[in-house]
């Protein structure tokens, strides 16, 4: 397969071959990261602009490490203390990014769809590092890579995603990536935090909603806990965090309902003691640290694949 995408905005329209191409390239990047000299030259002379209009440390650092490992120059633009905070429009920010000569723009934004807006107005390749509730494609891909490393072929594997699904770009991207690879997904969590159509029998293909977490976990091959934003309780969607933990939190006893040794994942940062017990988060089943390492390699794979796209050449 020959890679032909200019941007990585969402994986919802990707073919299985494209997902596989990224995962295979990720394997090669893992090997690069294991070398004594953790650096390879394919992005030499290229500039990667990290435009994070929403607070993020781990994703930004992960992209920065990925870009530097491939020898790119990295420019950081963050929301706080920047022109964005001073009231600059997204359109003007795009023009600035363009003038800076960025070849690849990695962007996070609180508005769903913002990366699409930018991709249509710049010559640079755009990678979506999370937009609103919409998508977080690199998280979906790194979760797929991590699950494949732990479970092998994902065909007929059943993965549980538990938590605040309605506000979660991670859940959407996990679904878009894991279902084409053959996995089935059981969504669980409070009905108030589930898209209403999804809990009324119209969940996306390959997924089902099971409000009872104990039942969802029974015999499952893996579980992904989503981060619970504390604002949700203030917004009246949850009676209390303690109740959430009692009903939807991942405890030792709960994860033991899964297949023996079935792994536990979390996109981070974790609220230990809320959606996941500390003993589970740091226990033998936890792949949380592996997710972080694999995240760098997945982002390297995408940066590498985009560097060859013709439009990047023209810019």
């Amino acid at each position: 397969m020959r890679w032909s995408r200019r941007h990585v905005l969402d994986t919802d329209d990707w073919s299985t071959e494209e997902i596989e191409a990224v995962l295979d390239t990720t394997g090669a990047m893992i090997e690069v990261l294991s070398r004594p000299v953790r650096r390879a030259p394919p992005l030499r002379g290229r500039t990667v602009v990290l435009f994070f209009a929403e607070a993020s440390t781990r994703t930004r650092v992960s992209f920065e490490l990925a870009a530097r490992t491939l020898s790119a120059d990295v420019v950081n633009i963050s929301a706080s203390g920047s022109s964005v905070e001073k009231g600059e429009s997204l359109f003007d920010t795009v023009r600035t990014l363009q003038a800076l000569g960025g070849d690849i723009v990695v962007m996070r934004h609180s508005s769903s769809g913002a990366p699409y807006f930018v991709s249509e107005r710049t010559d640079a390749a755009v990678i979506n590092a999370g937009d609103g509730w919409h998508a977080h494609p690199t998280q979906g891909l790194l979760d797929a890579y991590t699950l494949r490393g732990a479970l092998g072929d994902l065909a007929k594997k059943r993965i549980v995603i538990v938590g605040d699904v309605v506000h979660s770009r991670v859940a959407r991207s996990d679904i878009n990536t894991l279902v084409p690879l053959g996995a089935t997904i059981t969504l669980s969590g409070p009905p108030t935090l589930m898209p209403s159509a999804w809990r009324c029998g119209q969940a996306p293909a390959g997924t089902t909603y099971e409000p009872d977490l104990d039942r969802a976990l029974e015999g499952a091959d893996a579980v992904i806990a989503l981060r619970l934003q504390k604002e949700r309780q203030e917004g009246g969607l949850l009676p209390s965090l303690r109740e959430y933990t009692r009903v939807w939190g991942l405890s030792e006893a709960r994860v033991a309902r899964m297949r023996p040794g079935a792994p536990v994942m979390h996109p981070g940062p974790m609220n230990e003691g809320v959606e996941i017990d500390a003993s589970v988060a740091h226990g033998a089943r936890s792949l949380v640290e592996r997710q972080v390492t694999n995240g760098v390699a997945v982002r390297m794979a995408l940066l590498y694949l985009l560097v060859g796209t013709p439009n990047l050449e023209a810019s």
Partner: protein
Amino acid sequence: MLAVRLRDAIRANENATVPLGSLDITLYRDDLTRIGYAPIVRESALDFSVDDKVVVLVDDVLFTGRTIRAAMDALVDYGRPRAIRLAVLVDRGHRELPIRADFVGKNVPTKPTDDVRVHLTEVDGRDEVELIARERVSA
């Protein structure tokens, strides 16, 4: 494959086993931004230290020398070999870089437009080197 055969021959004749690895040089190519797409990268497998070792690079056909330049750049990211040598099955000439092989199976005079294809029993079921003459395509 060629390196595997050399390793096996050394084992049979010298009763010594030399470590064997493989390098994917895609990330080190000098034409990545010129070819218009990103070629597939495969995993390199070098599970031994190259520090202070004499490392012999093995390739089937030596042509422009650009692949070997990329391989040397990749190799030094793994350590500092005492020396790097080059063994090739066919040297077809037309170098674009100051690189030469230390061990050559056969020198074959070619035109730059020719195609040299190496078939090995392990992959293609036969050992054969084909020289295919190509007419220069007029622009």
